[in-house]
């Protein structure tokens, strides 16, 4: 286990060390202490390493992650796992707004609640939130899966494309062009796998699926009032 004191070493030294890890590195376990809400912790990683952050993080923890597993033993600020490509990020606490924004792949798990715009413009990432999510989540979500064990705020899935949205609790309101969808066997399988990987104690059958009604895919003046 390599331990880096962020306060003592600084952000640049931290990320430089993590970036220097090759795919076959022997130093696979890293611990970051004194995170103190710093921004851009462990961003741009591209190696199969496991990074544990002790404490809460600021903006963009794990941004653009590839391959790495990042565990945040605290809460995460805005944009945790933004544009991540692969790997896994697990936040023990809550996540602020834009969690998993534009993510292309990998798994983001929020064990607490996630704020507004969770999964905004997601492009293939899987996000599992054990608690609730805020308003405008999955706005313009393109692909991937957003799983919410709790409730969703206003305007869920507004203007979404092909992303699948699964909510176990209540949805305050659906956004433009988002509708309830049939839960087919393949969706149960997807959910089962995601819940298991996210360590979530819930049954797939308890969820409702939402997705695009596909009415706004091509501009039609008769739909102008929907915008």
């Amino acid at each position: 286990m390599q331990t880096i004191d962020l306060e003592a070493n600084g952000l640049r030294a931290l990320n430089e060390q993590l970036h220097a890890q090759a795919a076959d590195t022997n130093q696979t376990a890293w611990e970051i202490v004194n995170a103190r809400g710093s921004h851009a912790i462990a961003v741009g990683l591209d190696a199969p390493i496991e990074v544990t952050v002790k404490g809460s993080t600021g903006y963009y923890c794990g941004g653009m992650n590839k391959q790495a597993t990042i565990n945040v033993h605290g809460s995460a600020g805005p944009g945790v796992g933004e544009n991540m490509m692969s790997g896994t990020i697990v936040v023990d606490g809550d996540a602020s707004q834009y969690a998993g924004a534009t993510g292309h792949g990998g798994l983001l798990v929020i064990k607490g609640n996630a704020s507004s715009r969770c999964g905004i413009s997601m492009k293939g990432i899987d996000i599992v939130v054990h608690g609730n999510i805020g308003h405008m989540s999955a706005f313009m979500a393109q692909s991937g899966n957003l799983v919410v064990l709790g409730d969703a705020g206003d305007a869920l899935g507004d203007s979404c494309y092909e992303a699948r949205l699964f909510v176990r609790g209540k949805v305050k309101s659906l956004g433009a062009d988002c509708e309830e969808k049939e839960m087919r066997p393949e969706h149960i399988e997807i959910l089962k796998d995601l819940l298991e990987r996210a360590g979530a104690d819930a049954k797939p059958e308890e969820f409702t699926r939402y997705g695009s009604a596909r009415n706004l895919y091509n501009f039609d003046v008769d739909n102008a009032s929907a915008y």
Partner: protein
Amino acid sequence: MKDQEHRGIPTTTPRQSATFSQDVNSDIRRAAATGIYDIRGGGAKRRVPNFDDLLFMGASISRYPLEGYREKCETKVTLGTRFAKNPIELDIPITIAGMSFGALSGPAKEALGRGANAAGTSTTTGDGGMTPEERGHSSKLVYQYLPSRYGMNPDDLRKADAIEIVVGQGAKPGGGGMLLGQKISDRVAEMRNLPKGIDQRSSCRHPDWTGPDDLEIKILELREITNWRVPIYVKIAGARPYFDTTLAIKAGADVVVLDGMQGGTAATQDVFIEHVGQPTLACIRPAVQALQDMGMHREVQLVVSGGIRSGADVAKALALGADAVAIGTAALIALGDNDPRWEAEYNKLGTTAGAYDDWHEGRDPAGITTQDPELMARFDPIEGGRRLKNYLKVMTLEAQTIARACGKNHMHNLEPEDMVALTMEAAAMAQVPLAGTNWYPGKGGF
């Protein structure tokens, strides 16, 4: 009328309304017929105060000129000297502005790279990500970081020579983008993670930051991901250039790219293009003032775009304080866009060479703003690259000619004092004297 003539009453000449001109009337008829606003490509077509309204005075007894064919006038420019380990060094102060693969064909992007390489300058990606072709054909490539994040990934980010965070575009300050379904080929769809054939909207705001304080943190993140290696540009539209430039500098930008309303777009509402934003000429001095007030002029470089056409425009933008310019529409014309050789085909589309602006429809006879394989095959990227190189070289020679005539041995030594304005508006915007006077509006409190 015949009846009037018969009765000996003089007839009047039919008079078109200045308010309800034929253009306006055709817009009204089109709106009434379709129920939807007009979408088109390009920048503002209306006449606005521009670089043609400025003149250089040249040297005489009080100023000493340089010999045009003997004495050197340097054109090199370095962008990104503030924080980046590897600033971009260009041979000429003219760069190629961001244009997307999707809006443009692959061969057109290749030609931009070839031409820019040969002239010693950079090209820029656009909404839709980086293609291997444009990376391969551009020795200096600026990677745009846009609100849509289509195709955004850390591998391409690290391959870039600079990153340009796009906040605004001169053609549509405050607006997003739209790539209509007919231009969404399999490859474009795959790069953007969206189904083929649907309209692809690009949002107007970034999804994971709002405001200048967030932007500062976003810049930090991008620097950390790229190990502080490459410059980070911030592109703003000509909206509030003083404040936006100030905030971009404060947020940590290495370079500010300022795009006036003549700057082109692949597709936006005509009403947006013509009625939102400020002319390029009006934006430069406030942006330079912001740089000077922050003590950052020349430390943070200013790249100006929007309606740059000639070496004279380059020289005038630099004289007003810019470090370099970027061209988009002019580069497409150099490649062959709107060429009269395709006049018969432009006519079939209901337009004429020079006026064709339905780039979003993907039916470009010149094969540049299309994804149609048959149309694309008309365009030769090697020939296109050669034409762009020639054009860039001519612009550079023209700008040098003017700079030498003003006694400058580097393009950056041009200054506002070298110019006069032909109109009150241009004098006010450029803050150079009205020709024949020593005054411009605002000077001395008037």
